[in-house]
């Protein structure tokens, strides 16, 4: 394998794998984030709320690992991206982190004490823990599309010139809302398939409404992106260049984020998936094909997330302050050796992970009912 793959191919593979991990996170952990957002609204008493929590109670820990792995893979394969994004978005990351810490604690601890006020408190903690990451991750992607104010000195030390509030630019907020609508749709579709009545019916309605909102917002973002300043590499940049993001030429051009679709029109299939998945999910829900709806909702999530990546390729994190120092697929990766080793490890373990995850979902298949929760002292 080491001799078969050149550095440029490896970088493309790792760009694809990064996409796979982010989609994996959005699809699996998206269930949990979306459900948490709906928890106070779709479930109206304690029994219903416990029902909702136990639909994903046994799997949330595994789902969350997609995020941990996403972070680890960015660190290992795209260390410059990891360094710039995490320190640049410092306070936003801190907010996400608090929300993500709150989440496992809230779900584990909520039902371990019977007082109504205790439980209500954790219910709202769960709501926040679902909404904040969904919003902030979307806003972060929006900012990546707009370009982020960072630059490097000669020793590749990065400085970032912006703050927390600077992230909430109009287009970025739109991206954040897309993310919330998308995960709300996805979580509600999962609830429709896993929770017993009356949550099922409410979840179907909630998922369909979210799908409609997603379609409108996603279309608005596409229309906006057409006139937005995107980034384009001017001149040559070797695809196997050393990973040093200083010294290329980049220009900001209105509409440049549509370059890839102009060059390869079939790529339009990616955003189309985002739309079609949402529409088909809503359709399936009206027919009460709840599991089919989860499948289409997952496709929509994958389409939306992949659209951001495909539009920006080869950029991963453009700099608005010094466009020439933008991080791209060709100059922000790990060394070739590290990419090879990580690829081998991933190819061995990813199928195993998918296999036992599928096994666990199979063991836990079927709708969750109130009686089941009462009968099991481990229930959330």
């Amino acid at each position, binding site marked *: 394998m080491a001799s078969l793959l050149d550095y440029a191919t490896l970088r493309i593979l790792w760009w694809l794998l990064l996409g796979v991990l982010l989609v994996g996170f959005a699809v699996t952990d998206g269930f949990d984030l979306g459900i948490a957002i709906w928890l106070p609204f779709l479930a109206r008493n304690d029994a219903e709320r416990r029902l909702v929590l136990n639909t994903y109670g046994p799997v949330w820990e595994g789902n969350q690992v997609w995020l941990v*792995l996403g972070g680890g893979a960015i660190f290992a394969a795209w260390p410059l991206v*990891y360094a710039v994004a*995490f320190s640049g978005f410092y306070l936003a990351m801190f907010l996400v982190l608090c929300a993500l810490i709150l989440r*496992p604690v809230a779900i584990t601890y909520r039902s371990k004490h019977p007082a109504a006020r205790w439980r209500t408190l954790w219910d709202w903690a769960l709501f926040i823990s679902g909404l904040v990451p969904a919003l902030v991750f979307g806003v972060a992607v929006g900012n990546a599309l707009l370009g982020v104010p960072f630059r490097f000195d000669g020793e590749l030390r990065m400085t970032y010139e912006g703050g927390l509030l600077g992230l909430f630019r109009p287009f970025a907020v739109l991206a954040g809302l897309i993310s919330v609508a998308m995960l709300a749709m996805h979580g509600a579709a999962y609830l429709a398939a896993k929770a017993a009545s009356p949550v099922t019916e409410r979840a179907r309605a909630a998922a369909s409404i979210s799908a409609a909102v997603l379609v409108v917002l996603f279309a608005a973002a596409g229309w906006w992106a057409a006139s937005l300043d995107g980034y384009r590499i001017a001149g040559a940049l070797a695809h196997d260049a050393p990973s040093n993001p200083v010294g290329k030429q980049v220009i900001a051009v209105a509409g440049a984020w549509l370059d890839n679709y102009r060059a390869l029109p079939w790529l339009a299939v990616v955003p189309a998936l985002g739309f079609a998945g949402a529409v088909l999910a809503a359709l399936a829900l009206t027919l009460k094909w709840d599991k089919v709806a989860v499948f289409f909702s997952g496709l929509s999530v994958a389409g939306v997330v992949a659209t951001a990546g495909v539009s920006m390729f080869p950029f991963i994190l453009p700099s608005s302050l010094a466009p020439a120092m933008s991080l791209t697929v060709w100059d922000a990766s790990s060394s070739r*050796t590290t990419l090879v080793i990580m690829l081998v*490890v991933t190819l061995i373990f990813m199928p195993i992970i998918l296999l036992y995850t599928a096994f*666990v979902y199979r063991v836990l298949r079927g709708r969750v009912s109130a009686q089941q929760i009462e009968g099991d002292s481990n229930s959330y």
Partner: protein
Amino acid sequence: MIDPGTVELSRLQFGLTAMYHFLFVPLTLGLSLLLAIMESVYVMTGRGIWREMTRFWGVLFGINFAMGVATGLTMEFQFGTNWAYYSQYVGDIFGAPLAIEGLMAFFLEATFVGLFFFGWDKLSKTGHLVCTWLLALGTNLSALWILIANGWMQHPVGAAFNFRTMRMEVTSFYDVLFNPAGQAKFVHTVSAGYVTGSIFVLAVSAWFLLKGRYPEFAKRSMTVAASFGLASALSVVVLGDESGYTASQNQKMKLAAIEADWQTEAPPASFTVFGFPDVPNRTTHFAIKVPWVLGLIATRSTDEEVPGIINLVADNAGRIKQGIIAYRALETLRAHPEESGARADFMNNEPDLGYALLLKKYTDKVVDATPAQIEQAAWDTVPGVATLFWSFRFMVAIGFYFIALFALAFYLSARRQLDRHRWFLVAALWSFPLPWISSELGWFVAEYGRQPWTIDGVLPTFLSASSVSPGTVWTSLLGFVVFYSALAVVELYLMMKYIRIGPGNGVEPVAGSVAPRRAG
């Protein structure tokens, strides 16, 4: 230049959040294996009380596990948020074990922990047991990978600086993987986790016996904890010695600081059991020394020297001067990558480049550093001697106490006298906090003893931080303190509540009863 306030605050935040995280990790490591052992006995004997034991300790495991997972996220994020230059400088090597940890370990433990709790009625007995073992395997594998990463920070092997990318890059992944520092740390750390789990079970069971509740349940739990704990406590000490030996080979300064060993002695060096290190005067007062012991432990020989701090500082001053040559060559290479003289200079002095970076604290013009600045930077390589000296001794003392306690518990359990001696139960109960104290001391010795480096000899701590303002770090630091304190209160409250409720919802399961058969 980074604000020194940012560096100090980031260190404080990382130290606090890491130590907080490690309140939960050792219990997860130890209890997961104890659960697997208890459930194995259940599957082999079919006795319901062992199932009840697995379930009761499992509930406490679950409360602890949630906090371990939650606070672990902070650790992964912080390398990027607070240590961005570190991340870009060594991410090529350091990121890989972290990612592999996710692939190989986190998925395993996080996926099967769900079935551990919710699979009792959905899986066969053996099927559930396999899940529990996979959960224990996952937690232990995660320790392996994070300690390979940490071992590399202590002893960076298999990597070299690439001047084209201005960072360290991997040259031998095999060396990173089989780094002796990482391997020694792994076995020492997981054994410490097993001791923690055993003390937890021992102390809670002692409390039950003192209250006269669930005697059969408590005695059985204690028997498991005593035998597993004794084996683990012995391993911690033996394997800790291995860790000390690798430090003596690879981190001589850390070892000298822990021993407050100022001057090189004629071999074999004596071991200072007790004394008062006096850092300004570079001496140790009232030292009680045992001849030969340090030389034997650290070098496993009678003729090898254990270098003292003052001698190591002199060596390091030399390495700084070599490093300056590498740094000068690097400046040339950045403008003219093909210059052959600069290349040769760089290649010959590359291992000392990190030492030249120490000068950046005193001057931006590293190549023009004065002899006084070099002297200052050389003395910066000495970590806090007195703090390390005492932390290490307390940790070791607690380690030996554990051996005594578990040996006694093992003896009493063999004689079926666990509930006969009140003083023993009181001692077991009051030993509750000790494994946490010794674990935290151990990490403190390891990481504070690594200073002034994040990567030993490669990258100084003060250069590793992100370029964020001190105010920003204050915000997150205060946020963590408030948030984590609140969570700690909730955690302790629930832990005590479930201990009070006791096994089987307050009704002691009958020892000989057969568990209910698999339903559905």
